[in-house]
């Protein structure tokens, strides 16, 4: 500022004596020329600033003369700091959004009219939203379940809404609507399919144990009462006692299976002994023939040589269970194929039958305790309802998986797959 002032005073200081002592017009000319030059310099810098302000990008080449340069540099610094601050903010926001996307729970932000403003990836998946195209659309347009629409309409969000979706596959979601900021809503979606299923399983388990034990118990106590109160001849007595024996046997096998199951669950992992699989598979085939008593064709396909590492007794009980199931659920005249394949990459023991088959919707639940596709039929066949649960547990203790494929009316295939770490002596 001072320099600009100094320049003005200097012009006047030279022009005034010149005009006074030499020629008056010369003084004026000099004065005006000086001022005009001065003005032109200012104008040039001002027009630079004006040009820049029309499109204020960060430009280090913006230079001015004298005083102006300082102003320009200050502007440049200020602009730069501002840009850095914005960038930092944007990075923070992007990180926050990424965190929201990474959440396990679905998050949907809604405005006061329940229009979608934002949703994270989990919510997209859970509710079938599309975050880009659905922005601004009322959420009720996409999530059309009447239960959800009623929930929104009732406007009582003190309890979460449990929503069952059967889009693609059965899913159970729990939806919380939380008010935030001013007149905005945050919809939190939790996938509770697993817990819902576990709850159901626990309820079923207790109900099933009681039911399974009560049925034979009712028969038993009925006969006991009869024998106590009525005089029966020896022959009937023998018959009753035989039936009572059968029922108590049944209860015993249920309790036995339950104990096996709980001991498998709580016991330490099995010691790794080398199990002679050729002998074991052959024994399974003979067992199947004995159980079938000529009603089925029993085939054995064996491929590769080698043994498994694991607990022999657990493997025998698991694989024998698969074989006996196949025999029991295959009508007479059908065929049962035992398939044993082993290689360095892993091993597989499969039982393929031409039996009644299983509806696909039952397959995921087959290994649940007491889960039955058809209550009456499986009890007639003499099952306790725990067989496959035991199989699954024994196998998982050997890091093996049970794969079930089946077509109703055509037969089923139960395959136990062992990882390469369990294979030895190939």
């Amino acid at each position: 500022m001072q320099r600009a002032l100094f320049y003005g005073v200097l012009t006047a200081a030279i022009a005034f004596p010149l005009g006074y002592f030499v020629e008056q017009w010369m003084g004026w000319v000099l004065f005006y020329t000086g001022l005009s030059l001065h003005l032109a310099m200012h104008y040039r810098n001002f027009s630079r600033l004006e040009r820049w302000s029309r499109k204020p990008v960060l430009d280090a080449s913006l230079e001015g003369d004298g005083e102006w340069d300082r102003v320009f540099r200050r502007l440049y610094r200020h602009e730069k700091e501002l840009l850095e601050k914005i960038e930092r903010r944007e990075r923070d926001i992007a990180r926050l959004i990424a965190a929201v996307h990474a959440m396990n729970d679905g998050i949907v932000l809604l405005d006061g009219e329940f229009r979608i403003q934002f949703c994270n990836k989990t919510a997209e998946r859970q509710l079938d939203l599309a975050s880009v195209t659905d922005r601004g659309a009322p959420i009720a347009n996409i999530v059309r379940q009447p239960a959800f629409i009623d929930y929104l309409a009732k406007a009582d969000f003190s309890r979460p809404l449990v929503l069952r979706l059967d889009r693609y596959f059965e899913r159970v979601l729990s939806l919380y609507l939380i008010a935030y900021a001013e007149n905005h809503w945050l919809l939190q979606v939790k996938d509770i399919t697993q817990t819902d299923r576990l709850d159901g399983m626990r309820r079923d388990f207790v109900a099933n144990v009681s039911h399974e034990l009560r049925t034979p118990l009712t028969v038993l106590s009925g006969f006991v009462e009869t024998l106590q109160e009525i005089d029966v001849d020896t022959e009937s007595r023998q018959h009753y006692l035989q039936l009572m024996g059968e029922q108590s046997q049944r209860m015993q096998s249920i309790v036995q299976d339950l104990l096996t199951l709980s001991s498998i669950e709580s016991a330490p992992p099995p010691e790794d002994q080398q199990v002679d699989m050729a002998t074991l598979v052959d024994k399974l085939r003979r067992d199947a023939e004995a159980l079938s008593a000529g009603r089925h064709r029993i085939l054995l396909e064996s491929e590769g040589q080698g043994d498994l590492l694991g607990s022999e007794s657990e493997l025998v009980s698991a694989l024998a269970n698969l074989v006996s199931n196949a025999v029991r659920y295959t009508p007479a005249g059908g065929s049962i194929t035992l398939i044993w394949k082993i290689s360095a990459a892993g091993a597989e023991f499969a039982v393929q039958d031409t039996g009644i088959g299983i509806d696909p919707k039952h397959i995921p639940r087959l290994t649940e305790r007491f889960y039955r596709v058809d209550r009456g039929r499986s009890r007639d066949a003499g099952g306790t309802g725990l067989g496959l649960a035991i199989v699954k547990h024994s196998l998982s203790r050997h890091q093996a998986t049970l794969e079930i494929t089946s077509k109703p009316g055509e037969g089923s295939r139960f395959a136990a797959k062992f990882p390469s770490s369990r294979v030895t002596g190939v």
Partner: protein
Amino acid sequence: MNESLHVSSQFDEDLGRLRTHVLQMGGLVETQISAAIDAYTTGEVASVKTIVETDRKVNDLEKAIDDDCAHIIAKRQPTASDLRLVLGISKIVTDLERAGDEAKKIAKGVRRIYEAGHMPAQYGVGIRHLAEAALTMVRQALDAFARLDGTLAVSVIRADADVDVEFKSIIRQLITHMMEDPRTITTSIDIISISRAIERIGDHAKNISEQVIFVVEGRDIRHNKEAIK
């Protein structure tokens, strides 16, 4: 100036509400259909009553939406895309209502079969698969309407051909059953009418998608196989 802005945004709001109502009705029909399929596979005929009751709600909504459409046309005289939307909606609700009726038919057929003591599962036909395909069509048609997504609508129309093929194969299978064992005729006929209803649901979904394309693109592609290629 301000006045007209206010009026037109009020109009937009009306249209938005109308769309939401249509989708709400669609949601009801979707649940009706999936409940009917569930009843078929599980044999829980208790849900049949709910399905029939929901149908009443669907009918009421159809009437209300139709009324709203007439009101909007009379009061606002919409033009261009707004007019197409209102016209499209009045056709879509008709198809939705009919799809709901078909769901009701399925439910009643299921009740007939189970009350007669038969198990449709024994017939081993792919009804569930067919029904899921039809239900997906309805869902996608409604999604296409909600998002005004012409591409999705076209894919729904294409899916209809698959449903038709599957329907025909079910009929062939049931005919074989009936020829082999005349005792299965009663149940087979019920299953045929159920699969027919499902196939019709697919057709309604297709009609809805055609209307969506009309709303979005302004072309009428009904009865025009070339248009979707």
